Each structure stands twice: as C-alpha cells, then as structure tokens.
C-alpha cells in the first residue's frame, strides 16, 4: 500500500535520525540535506538505500543529486510509489 506524504516525511525523518542522530522534528520539508541538516554525500546514500527498503521504491544514483531538500525526497518517493 502506498504511503501518504505525511507518512513518507515521518518515515524519512526516522531514517535521518538513525543515520545522523538529528531529532526527527528537525527534518522538515523545507530543509536542505546538505546546508541545513549537514548531511554529507555518503550519509545521503545510506539514507537513500534505507528509504528504498522502507518505501519499496528505486532511487537511482543519478537522481540522488536532485534531492536537495527533504521535500524533494518526499515528492520523489510519493511519485515513485505510484509508478
């Protein structure tokens, strides 16, 4: 069953928390992974792989660089679930 946008944001926040220790409440849609959350490219890959497993989607390497903000990732996952 497809996850709602709110579910995806909450799930992504848990994944970010697990990888970085950041509070889930800090993982807001408008935040940039790099500039606001200080997540480097290696941690970002770990987050992407865990998001793929959690939401049952595929996020190719070439698309990861387009996921600048948390909302970008949420939108991508919501759309990918419908594909």
């Amino acid at each position: 069953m497809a996850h709602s946008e709110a579910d995806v944001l909450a799930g992504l926040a848990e994944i970010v928390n697990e990888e970085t220790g950041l509070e889930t409440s800090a993982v807001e849609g408008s935040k940039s992974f790099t500039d606001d959350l200080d997540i480097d490219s290696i941690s970002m890959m770990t987050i992407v792989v865990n998001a793929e497993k959690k939401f049952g989607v595929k996020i190719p390497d070439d698309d990861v660089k387009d996921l600048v903000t948390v909302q970008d990732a949420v939108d991508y996952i919501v759309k990918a679930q419908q594909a």
Partner: protein
Amino acid sequence: MTTLKTPEAGRFSRITGIGGCRSEHAVPNEALVGPIDSSDEWIRQRTGIITRHRAGADVSVADMAEEAAVEAIANAGLKPSDIGGILLATVTTGIPTPSAAALLTEKLGTGPVPAWDISAACAGYCYGIAQADALVRSGTMDNILVIGAEKLSDFVDPTDRSISFLLGDGAGAVVVSASDTPGIAASVWGSKGENWETIRLTNSFIEMKDDPEAPFPTLRQDGPSVFRWAVWEMAEVAQQALDAAGITAADLSAFIPHQANMRIIDELAKQLKLPESVQIGRDIADNGNTSAASIPLATERLLRENPELHGKLALQIGFGAGLVYGAQVVVLP
C-alpha cells in the same frame, strides 16, 4: 588413443607466507588540504584517514613488490628458487608492457618462471588469489607469489576532491602453496562493465600523444555511487563467499576488506552482522587506500598485532575500478 599427461590434480592450496612494504613518507591530511580547500577534520570524517604513506620519486612499483615478496618468501620458509610463478596485481606501473612481474623474476632470482601483471585495480589481489588457488590445485605450480603493489601517488591530482587525498603507495605479498588440507575456499569474483567510468583515469595516454594539451592522466571516482555499490552490493558478494566456503560470519576470526574508506569498512561490517569477536582490518587510518596492496598489507598488520589469528579463518574482499570485485575465505598463514 594416447592419453595426454597432465599435472597432478585433486589437491588443495593455502597461504603459507606473507610480507609487506610500507612506503617511508607519512603524509598527514594537513599536507593535502590546501589545494582542495579542505581540512584535516573533513578528511577524517569522510574517510577515517589520518595519514597515508607515499614512496619517494626513485622508488618503483617493482621495488616495493620486491621488498614485500622477499619477506613473504622467507616467511613461508622458502627460497626464491622454490617459486613457480609470480602474479603481480597493479595498475600503476605506467608501463603496460613489459610487465613488472617479469622484471621481478630477475630481481628476486626465481629463475625463468611464468610471471604476469593483473589489471583488476583494488580487486587485483583477490583476483590473484583466485588464480593462484586454481593453478596450485590443478597441479600446475607448487608455490606462487601473489603480490599487490601500487604507486598511486604518480596518478593523483592535488586539486581533485574525489579520490586523490585517499591514496597511498605500498606493496603486500603472499605465497600460495600446495596443501593437504583446504586453505582457500572458492572465489566469488566478477565485473560490472556498465559502471566502467565510476572509477577511472581522466584520459588515456594515447590522448596525450594526439593532443599536446591533454593532461597526464589522474584518478577520479563518483564517490557516493562507489559507496553505495561497495557497501550494499559487496555485502551480497561477501555473503556469497561465506556460502561458497560453507561457513557463516560466526566462524570467522577476521574480516579484511579492501581499505577504500573507513566508512565503507564500517558500513560493510554492519551489513554483514559480524560478531564482535571478528577482527576487522583497519589499516587505512594511517596507511590510506593502496588499491591492490591494501588487503595483503592489512592482513600482514592484523597478523603482526594479533598473533592468535595465525591459522584462523578470514574473509577478504576487494572491489574497485572496472567495476570489478573478488572475495574468498582463506586460512590465515
């Protein structure tokens, strides 16, 4: 019909000796951060590297390979004349032909034995072990030198932020010998040509011939893509190597992955759910990434610092430019 004579088969192989050559110049992060506008903290946090060792201008890949090989032959209790073949894994001699392995027959005094270089980047050592295992078990040779040797400092660009600051020089060598009991399990090895450009040289030497403006080739990598492949796909390969050996992670005493990046090593160990009792090769912290040399160098250090590991089981896995990979479970010498 006449039956052809073939070598004695149906025997086993094992690693009987090991040696290493660590380059003399320790290069701290501070020496490299200027041209990449970085910091000691940035490099440590992303790679776990504190120093890497680099060779002097007058030291060649063959020189380092020779030093490691001499130690490995002595450690195996053999003489150079006992060696039946030399496999040298390297991508940094700068001379595709003649091979550095052929030169080693002269430098080591082995006699006119078969010798060849293996081009499999950071998987080269595991490719060499796979070949030596097959050659020994088939009865083709009794004692084979497998060497990983690299002078990566000749192929770095000080302004490159993708890979250059990781790289060091060095050599590690082992002797693979005939054995009455199994000492090297089946290898799991392969290639993934669709990712040919993920780790690469910037250009070919031929481009330099045709274009006077073409730079000397230096290494680059797509770091995040390499990280994803090296952790999650290599975790599957590592598990296949355990399955091929008929053991589980709980049977291991050591895990010795290619020393690419401490974060790859840590995440790979996590994915494999290794018991805490398994010693993990972490030579990278002060030796950097030495490509084909990294697994034998990390193995040599683990054995030196943990003598109780002699005769115990280790899982080794190499992975790198190609993309190529190789893994096998071995009994440590």
